[in-house]
């Protein structure tokens, strides 16, 4: 047997008093061998990031290691004095983070940030540092290294920033790389590239990788070994293939079941009466433009026409910057288009004046992406839901009765009405958001990435709710998402957008089984774990 690169024995991390449990991580033991990728999987709050932070000595105040050892190169890294830890960080254990924008210093050029790693460990001379930075930039596959080295983080895209982060992490050839959800904030196609890069680098440098993720699709792509964590405890561990195919612990099974699979639902007969019709819509954003600078134009929506039938769920899929959110916001007229029509029940929402619009607002409602920002923290749930109907002239008592009914419908119970948003979890808040939208009796609901911020098991529950509401209330939904797997679960038809243009539109079966456009095929191929699920679907 090989000697493990890192072995953790009985690690316990204590939370401060008053937290929902005593330990962030309890009695965790595992080992990573040289050149191995270990995926730590779990939902938010499962303690997976805490484990990584403990190894790096980055625990937040109030949280401390209560016991256990982490053996790395013959030393217990948890017991090292701070100066030794500092020397170890970056040199022998490196880390990459989830949010590449905030993890890079916005005021420093990329080349300088990489060179700084050498400077911090007193390695190399200044010109050598620069050359090495160039090499690293080339190695992680950033285009035009000479230019990138002088670029600031804001000039790079999300995927490029993540590559720069990886270059920094690789600078001193660490033995262990900790990656904390490094692809979560990225588009699927970018994610696929970054995962491939990590696999290649592992091959080349033979380093051990501890990869933290919540996405089993990603696990299927890169993991050798898998650990599943639930509320600070390890519930399952084993080779990737074994955990994915024959999970033993009920929690792992539940997580795997909750993953939106590529399995397609039965096609339903669709109505022909349109709830929403969008006709040759255009929206262009202009930025910059001064005396000496040319105006930068972004065609967020470029001549898009589509329609959503009554009782239909249309999925709007695309990567960030594809204009899908702008389209959704135009449909509810939070954004006014430059030209084109948005017909809801025969009325052109895009052409109404401010006053007329207020009376028509109730026809299209929106469920927002961020469950924490979409509810006013200083407003009780009941007034959040009744605000709209009361403005429309519904008597208060009646509106409140209806709000309680709706809270029951979305599965929260009427007693939720008198509480404040902070008492609810993310999934519950999304249910409140749905109740708020339903309270207006809309013809169409626009759901803008409504389940993207949620854990898989919660996401599955909210999707179930939407499916249930769709059949019970005959709802029309414009469902905006970046995740094709999610779209497949709920939608009747899918529209694919790229750079403001509508690339392809068709039934779920058409899109998944016989995509006509190259871009759609590319998107489908980039879905993490696509191969694994195809196998599974074949065996099922």
């Amino acid at each position, binding site marked *: 047997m090989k000697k493990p690169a890192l072995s953790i024995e009985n690690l316990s991390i204590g939370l401060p008093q008053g937290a929902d449990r005593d330990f962030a991580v309890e009695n965790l033991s595992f080992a990573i061998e040289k050149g191995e990728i270990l995926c730590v999987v779990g939902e938010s709050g499962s303690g997976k990031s805490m484990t990584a932070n403990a190894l790096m000595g980055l625990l937040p105040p109030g949280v401390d290691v209560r016991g256990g050892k982490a053996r790395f190169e013959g030393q217990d890294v948890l017991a090292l004095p701070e100066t030794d830890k500092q020397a170890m960080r970056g040199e022998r254990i490196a880390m990459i983070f989830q949010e590449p924008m905030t993890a890079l210093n916005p005021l420093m050029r990329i080349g300088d940030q990489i060179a700084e790693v050498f400077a911090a460990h007193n390695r190399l001379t200044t010109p050598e540092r620069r050359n090495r930075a160039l090499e690293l930039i080339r190695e992680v596959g950033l285009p035009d290294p000479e230019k990138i080295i002088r670029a600031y983080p804001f000039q790079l895209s999300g995927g490029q920033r993540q590559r720069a982060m990886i270059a920094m992490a690789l600078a001193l050839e660490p033995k262990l790389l900790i990656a904390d959800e490094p692809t979560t904030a990225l588009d699927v196609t970018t994610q696929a590239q970054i995962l491939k890069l990590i696999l290649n680098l592992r091959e080349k440098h033979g380093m051990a990788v501890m990869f933290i993720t919540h996405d089993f699709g990603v696990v299927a792509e890169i993991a050798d070994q898998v650990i599943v964590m639930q509320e600070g405890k390890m519930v399952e561990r084993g080779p990737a293939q074994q955990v994915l195919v024959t999970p033993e612990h009920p929690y792992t099974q539940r997580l795997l079941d909750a993953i939106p699979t590529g399995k397609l639902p039965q096609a339903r007969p669709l109505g022909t009466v349109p709830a929403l019709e969008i006709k040759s819509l255009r929206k262009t954003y202009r930025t910059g433009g001064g005396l000496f600078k040319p105006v930068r134009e972004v065609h967020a929506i470029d001549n898009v026409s589509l329609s959503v039938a009554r009782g239909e769920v249309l999925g709007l899929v695309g990567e960030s910057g594809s204009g899908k959110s702008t389209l959704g916001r135009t449909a509810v007229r939070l954004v006014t288009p430059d030209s084109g029509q948005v017909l809801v029940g025969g009325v052109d929402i895009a052409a109404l004046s401010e006053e007329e619009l207020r009376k028509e607002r109730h026809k299209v409602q929106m469920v927002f992406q961020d469950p924490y*920002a979409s509810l006013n923290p200083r407003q009780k749930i009941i007034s959040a839901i009744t605000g709209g109907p009361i403005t429309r002239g519904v008597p208060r008592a009646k509106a409140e009765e209806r709000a309680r009914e709706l809270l029951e419908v979305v599965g929260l119970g009427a007693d939720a009405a008198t509480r404040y948003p902070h008492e609810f979890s993310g999934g519950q808040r999304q249910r409140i958001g749905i109740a708020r939208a339903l309270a207006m009796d809309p013809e169409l609901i626009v759901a803008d990435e409504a389940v993207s911020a949620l854990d898989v098991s919660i996401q599955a529950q909210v999707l179930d709710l939407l499916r249930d509401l769709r059949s019970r209330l005959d709802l029309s939904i414009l469902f905006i998402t970046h995740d094709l797997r999610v779209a497949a679960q709920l939608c009747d038809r899918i529209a694919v957008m790229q750079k403001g243009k509508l690339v392809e539109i068709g039934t779920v079966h058409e899109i998944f089984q016989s995509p006509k456009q190259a871009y759609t095929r590319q998107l489908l191929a980039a879905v993490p774990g696509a191969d694994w699920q195809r196998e599974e679907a074949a065996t099922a």
Partner: protein
Amino acid sequence: MWKRFRSNIGAMVGVAILLAVILIAVCAPLIYPHGPWQMVQRPFLPPMSVDGLPLGTDTLGRNVAAQLAYGAQVSLLVGLVSTIVALLIGVPLGAVAGFYGNWVDEGAMRFTEFFQTIPNFALAIVLVAIFEPTLASITLAIAIVSWPPVARLVRAEVMSVRKREFVDAATLAGLSRPKILITQVLPNTVSPIIVMASLMVATAILLESSLSFLGLGDPNAMSWGYMIGAARTVIRTSWWLSFFPGIAIVLTVLALNLIGEGLNDALNPHLSRKGRA
């Protein structure tokens, strides 16, 4: 929130001092029914030299302790009222500027800058000199020079809150713009305003004292600044005449600052400096 505030020792000391000052101010007419202007003994009596006059007498033989107590009334009143007036000007202006943006914002902010380009104290002096120096005019002058920071703070807060999704949700609910501003946005800007207000009271007290020191105070109101101003010619022979009102100002302003800091830590726990130590 109250738990966090109470656990802050500095803030609790501040509250204790402030309560003491308020108590003295309220009880002044009961303890010294003759008022601060009456001559009670020979002038220039040092502290503790005669029974019943623990802080001595001033140049005209008036009771320094009585003057201090009545001065507390004036200082607190001016501090509080001018802050309220400043909030009444600054909050609506800042809120409207931040919420509506564009030319409304431009107009309101240029107007604010107009006031900010003139040094605070100079403007206050000019205003008091133009009006008769009465308590009302001094309070108004202080309010007029201290609202611009409020407007800027509220504007910045409103600008960040109005981009949150619940504001979009309220728009979709058909609420009118002014109603969204009042019911959705403003309630979420209250905490920084409270913190700033507590610090503004302290600044206002200092401003009033400075004005009185220069002889621009209300001649009919006994204030701490007036006491120091009157005593400055005899500072070498009768130190207590300027020392005690000075201490009173220091303690009150310190108390208000401690409370402000405490409120800040309690209302914005993420910014608390203690958590990072």
